[in-house]
């Protein structure tokens, strides 16, 4: 049996209601007793008692409705969020979380974002420089690579994000609904690359609403409903059950 790369043991994650305080010091101080009480008690439970493991080289899918807690799970794996209860352990070099929307820094060009991205991921600038041409070629962004990414469309951002993250030799790749926005050709390219990652035994955790790519890419899948695990197992079986339910 291969080694487990990601493991969640009875993990719960709740968010405090930060809007109570991000309104500002003034507001906070004027409503002090109430604000403190609310802040202490009113927490939003996003994940409740989740346990699962992802093995070395496995492609693991997460499905569930909007707001179920899929992105929260990925954030916990990426280490940008911390669990409230329970233990999350992850081994290996993680790619930046690939998700929709904002790219890295909108004032920087695509090329500069590649460097920022790579160095944040743990590579030196020289190591990134060796790969930058491949990344640009894969992204097919052409001359747009020298433009600030604020002018990119969401599909172009997804291209850049996927190209970078997948070119920097990650040991764990985290993908959040990113395939949905690219055009068909790029989607194919992404799926192809993910297939080659599978062969290279890169561990992937994959959130998608496309049941088709879920089935074709993932070995196992987890279905999160109402912030807790509804079903976990063979990807085909989980997807089938999920589709029947909805």
């Amino acid at each position, binding site marked *: 049996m291969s080694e487990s790369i990601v493991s969640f043991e009875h993990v719960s994650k709740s968010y405090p209601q*930060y809007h109570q305080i*991000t309104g500002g*010091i003034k507001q906070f101080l004027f409503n002090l007793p109430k604000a403190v009480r609310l802040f202490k008690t009113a927490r939003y439970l996003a994940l409740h008692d989740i346990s699962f493991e992802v093995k070395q080289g496995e492609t693991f899918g997460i499905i569930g409705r909007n707001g179920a807690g899929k992105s929260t799970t990925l954030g916990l794996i990426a280490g940008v969020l911390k669990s409230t209860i329970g233990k999350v352990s992850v081994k290996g070099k993680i790619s*930046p979380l690939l998700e929709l929307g*904002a790219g890295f*820094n909108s*004032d920087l060009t695509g090329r*500069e974002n590649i460097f920022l991205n790579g160095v944040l*991921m743990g590579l*030196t600038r020289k190591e990134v420089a060796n790969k930058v041409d491949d990344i640009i070629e894969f992204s097919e962004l052409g001359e747009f690579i020298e433009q600030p990414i604020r002018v990119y469309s969401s599909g172009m951002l997804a291209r850049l994000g996927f190209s970078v993250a997948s070119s920097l030799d990650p040991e764990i790749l985290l993908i959040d609904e990113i395939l949905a926005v690219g055009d068909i050709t790029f989607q194919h390219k992404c799926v192809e690359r993910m297939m080659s990652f599978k062969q290279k035994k890169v561990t992937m955790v994959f959130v998608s609403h496309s049941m088709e790519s879920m089935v074709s890419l993932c070995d196992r899948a987890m279905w999160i409903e109402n912030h807790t695990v509804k079903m976990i197992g063979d990807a085909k079986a989980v997807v089938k059950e999920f589709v029947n339910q909805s």
Partner: protein
Amino acid sequence: MNRKVQHFIDLVLVLTQKDLKVRYKSNILGYLWSVANPLAFAFVFYVAFKVIMRIQMEAYALFLIAGLFPWQWFANSVSVTPTVFLSNASIIKKVNFPRNIIPFSIVLQDMLHFIFSIPVIVLFMLIYHKLPHWSWIYGIPILLIVQFVFAYGISLFVSSINLFFRDLERLVGILITLCFYFTPIIYPLEMIPDKYQSLVNLNPMCPLIISWRNLFFYGKVEWMYIFISLGYGVLALLIGYAVYRKLSWKFAEVL
């Protein structure tokens, strides 16, 4: 070179470059700004106090500049501090890296601008027939470190807290202005009335600016002021780092 060290350097470099671009559009503009801004203020104060109010001080222009340049470094670093994590939200939410490198590289960058503006101070010294002193060789690095530690500590504190209390930004702006006028930058320490002299060292920037000016003006390294400044610096860093440590794992949640 050790790969870890190389990576740390690259991380600071990439973040600094990014920040330069976002703040000033280019390195040159950033430098010009850090020189032109205190020069403009020096001009205004010179006109107001020397030309109009006729303050009795020799080399007043040089006096102003010797205090305004290091002040500018501090004020620049601290005034952007409240928003540094906000403006880096997208990287903080996606990658787990030591977030304190962001304020670190900001303070570092402003320090470099300050270092490159020292020749302007020398130029003004030459105008007033003064020469750089050999004590600068150790005086400048010591003060650079002391001020860096202080500014970085404050930055860590303010940037972490501001994520949770977003109006801190405005408060910081007011505090910087207050601190400016309570620090002997546009007036000499001696002019402060005797009964307030004992309060002077309660303002952390006060011994620091006095140290810089003593160094530039007279080539004097006064250890008492330096130690007081260092004390404030270490205190700021300890508190700043403690607050940062306590809050940093929540950054991705609030952003």
